[in-house]
């Protein structure tokens, strides 16, 4: 085994060491626990970057050791361009959330458990993106769910957190079970859990089986993506979860659904099998986009407004995936990254607003614009960004998605409606901005300035958002290579 292959395993192993340290070190203060968490998580960021040059040469890096030989199951990882894009997005979002949590009151109690669970949550997502074994994939997939449920349950806000976490668990687990059915079917049919091998052979399955599996995969992953009407877990979970967890949920975990769609049905089956689903995915994407935006417009709870905007943004991504065109799907992958940055940043803004005003109802907040100029600027950039205002990042991904819509040849009208529907994002974004930052109504209790510990990561993400928007080249190249991984060079 080559050194870089062993290094790849470090992405999953080193955070585990961090978890163990945190579980053992019970007397760790919040800062100590955070440092352990951040350092452990940083390995998951540094290692892929170190492996980048090798990845350019090799195209993909594999690591595999037998796990359950009798069942042909191995601890098998694969780093390819698609995985890299999603992995870095997830790790960056987690790191941002961990840094943000230093200034946040959530997680003050039992910090070592809190950061251990954050690490496990992230590990679940890292493992999901890297797994080259369906058995391993499912374990990481469920680890992600369990860790997040525990975080909401233990550190969530309000008395409803038990019910909310139960709802979140049951609904997303139902989706996971649908995925599990597919994975078992594949395993039983081919006698192997190795994903690379399954990708080679899956197209030999009878067409009806392929259609059945694609349907189940898509529904299962759409639950994770919170596509209307499977989104019902999202607003509550985002609202009740502590802010750093909300950031990871919105910025990273939703992306796992997109990754699942690309990694499984799209990679396993030929385009002819996926083609009948295309228009339905596009329609579902459009409906989700419009519905999420309207709900964000009607909502009064500031966290829920941004939560619903995720439903809307995931609609764009599904639309892009549904186009089955190079530009549409590249746009979808780019949108995942841009959305992660914007959403993480907007939730940080929301967190600061809640910290500063002690209010969560938008009707009770107002006039912050004159008081908190840096926060106002960040919010303005973030909201313009999510509205697809050029030259901020989401504009790049959106127009790729829309161009993909036209390229698909499915329906010009459908793409035009989706494009014009994006105006709704602007409507709720401006309402959000206007209600919070304009007017003379101010909450009774208000801090004079934003807490620096919270503001620094927010500003950093804002700068990153602007740079990413101005220099979309590398991301575009990664998205193109990722797509090539999925379709074996068809696009």
């Amino acid at each position, binding site marked *: 085994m080559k050194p870089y292959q062993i290094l790849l395993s470090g992405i999953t192993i080193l955070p585990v060491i961090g978890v163990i340290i945190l579980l053992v070190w019970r007397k760790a203060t919040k800062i100590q626990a955070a440092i352990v968490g951040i350092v452990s998580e940083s390995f998951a960021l540094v290692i892929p970057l170190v492996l980048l040059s090798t990845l350019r040469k090799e195209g993909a890096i594999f690591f595999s050791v037998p796990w359950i030989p009798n069942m042909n199951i191995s601890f098998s990882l694969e780093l390819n361009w698609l995985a890299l894009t999603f992995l870095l997005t997830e790790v960056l979002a987690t790191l941002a959330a961990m840094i943000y949590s230093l200034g946040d009151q959530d997680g003050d109690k039992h910090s070592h458990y809190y950061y251990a669970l954050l690490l496990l949550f992230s590990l679940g997502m890292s493992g999901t993106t890297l797994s080259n074994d369906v058995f391993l994939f499912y374990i990481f997939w469920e680890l992600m769910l369990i860790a997040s449920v525990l975080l909401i349950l233990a550190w969530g806000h309000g008395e409803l957190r038990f019910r909310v976490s139960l709802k979140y668990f049951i609904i997303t687990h139902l989706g996971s079970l649908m995925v599990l059915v597919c994975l078992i079917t594949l395993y039983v049919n081919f006698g192997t859990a190795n994903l690379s091998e399954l990708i080679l052979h899956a197209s030999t399955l009878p067409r009806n089986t392929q259609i059945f599996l694609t349907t189940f995969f898509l529904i299962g992953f759409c639950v994770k993506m919170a596509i209307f009407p499977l989104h019902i877990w999202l607003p*509550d979970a985002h609202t009740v979860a502590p802010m750093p967890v909300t950031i990871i949920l919105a910025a990273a975990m939703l992306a796992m659904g997109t990754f699942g769609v690309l990694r499984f049905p799209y990679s396993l089956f030929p385009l002819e099998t996926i083609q009948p689903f295309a228009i339905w995915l596009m329609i579902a994407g459009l409906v989700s986009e419009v519905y999420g935006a*309207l709900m964000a417009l009607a909502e009064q709870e500031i966290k829920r407004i941004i939560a619903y905007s995720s439903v809307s943004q995931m609609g764009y991504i599904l639309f892009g995936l549904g186009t089955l065109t190079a530009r549409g799907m590249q746009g979808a992958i780019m949108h995942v990254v841009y959305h992660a940055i914007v959403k993480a940043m907007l939730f940080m803004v929301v967190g600061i607003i809640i910290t500063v005003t002690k209010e969560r109802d938008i009707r009770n907040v107002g006039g912050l614009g*004159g008081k908190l100029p840096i926060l106002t600027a960040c919010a303005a950039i973030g909201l313009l960004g999510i509205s697809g205002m050029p030259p901020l990042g989401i504009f790049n991904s959106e*127009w790729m998605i829309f161009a993909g819509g*036209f390229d698909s040849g499915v329906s010009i009208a459908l793409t035009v409606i989706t494009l014009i529907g994006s*105006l709704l994002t602007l409507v709720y974004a401006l309402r959000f901005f206007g*209600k919070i*930052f304009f007017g003379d109504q101010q909450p009774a209790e208000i801090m004079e300035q934003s807490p620096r510990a919270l503001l620094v990561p927010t500003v950093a993400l804002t700068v990153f958002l602007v740079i990413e928007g101005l220099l979309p080249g590398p991301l*575009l190249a990664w998205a193109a290579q990722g797509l090539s991984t999925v379709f074996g060079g068809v696009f």
Partner: protein
Amino acid sequence: MPSVINFSLVALIFVFTIPLGATVLTLLCRPEHHRRVCLAGIGVVMIGLLALFLGGEADILTGLTFMGEPIIFSISNTAILLYASTLLPLGYLVWRNPPDETLAMTPYQWSLLHLSLSAGFVAFISGQFMIRYIALDVVGLLAAMTVLTSFSVTSGLKQFIIIFQILRLGDLSLLASILLINHFSGTLEIGPMIAAAAEMPPNARLWVFLGFLMALWIKMAVWPFGIWQEKVHRHAPSVTFWISGLMIPALGYYLLYRITPIINSAAIFQRISLFSALALVVLMILLNTIKQIRYARFSQLGGVMSCFLLAAIPFSNGKLLVYYLMGLLLHRWLMLLEDEVQKPALRVLTVLFPLLLNSLWLGFNYSGFPPAVSLGWMVVTVLVVAWDLYLQYKPEPKGRFPEQVGQVRLEDQPYGGFLVNIAEWLNNELELAVFTQGPVKFAEFFEGLAGWVYRNVEGQIEKLWISIGRLLVALSEGTLSNVEGRIEKLWISIGNLLVALSEGTLRKVEEDATRSTTAVMGNALNSLADYEKNVLKKSLRWDLAWIPFLLVMILVMLFVL
């Protein structure tokens, strides 16, 4: 030796960066210098434009790419001329504006002006449609931002939202058209795109045309799509209104000029352009007359003249269209000045200008117009002038146009307008009632079902078991009393019987035995007595007495031997 410096590129960068530099200077210098900075910036930009003009028409490859597409700047005299002719009135406005008014302008407002100069320049000369689109979008945002004055005034933000949303609708329509053409042309370079658009399938071309038409109606501020301009006119400081009043319509005019081949690629597009333009003019005059709408004169007349341009496109004649465009810009310029200085002489000029411009256009271009259209063209022109004259007798109130009586105050209107009602309805009826309450109801249903099952099934089963238990108990008891008892009785009886039998047997046997024994004993004793009596009567036989002695002797001998 070939020149290593591309002077056009240098001039281009110069024109683009000077306003950006002016923005920085504005933020740094004292308020009394803002006006000078702006005027100096405009002056330097004009010099740069002159250099570009002298450099001649050219496509400049920057070597940069955006999303994989090369960034090209297309230097054309038309674009330079249009841009320069929008700059001149800005310089004049800044120069002539009362010092107290310009002093009142904040650095923020000056910055908007400078930034719009840079973005507007890119929008004019970009040879790549996506970069042009981005620049247009940015100009739109800057124009909308001119109405934002303070964080404490919500009405300003609400105006901003309306203005920006309308402008963005135009931009998104434009984006749809660009992307659709790009799908067929495979490039984002404007020239090849326009050429390819004319060859697109009719269905797709219709969408492209409609997208452009919507974008044009909005950018050229044609009623009713020009409501955004009216709002900026009411609420923005006069100098910054230049972005909305002149820059954006000029960009719209230039866009229309560039897409003329698309409009002229199908008769239906020409008719839609012509008739929609004329119909909008007549409708606006009509509605204005019956006081259904009340726009400021600038917005009304500006929109009407834009309609004339749209109507003229089907009969355009090369360079003449550029002159007509320039004439329209000049008219807007005069209107803008008239709006500021309010001089009667200038007002007469602005009233009669449409008549002059349209007559000249028709005169120079008469061969292009069919007679009926020529007649219609002039009739509508006369109608517009007459209507404008009529407005002079009923002048609008001085200053900014007031809000209409009975209109809900903007401050009291919700953010998002009518969409909020739809969203709230959906939120209540679907999201809360179905998707949020749904799982709760679902859970409650299952709880109820479980309760019912517990009560009705589980309870019944329990009752059944209890009954069975009771039955068994009863059976046991019954068995105990009926079977077990009887068996017991039987056994008792048997026992009793046996006892009785035993007792009977014992009594009988024992008594009989006793009796027998007694009798036997009596008999035996009697016999023994008798025997003893008989024995005693007999004599001893000594002859047999030696036998026991003999036996004793034998035993002794056996022992000894």
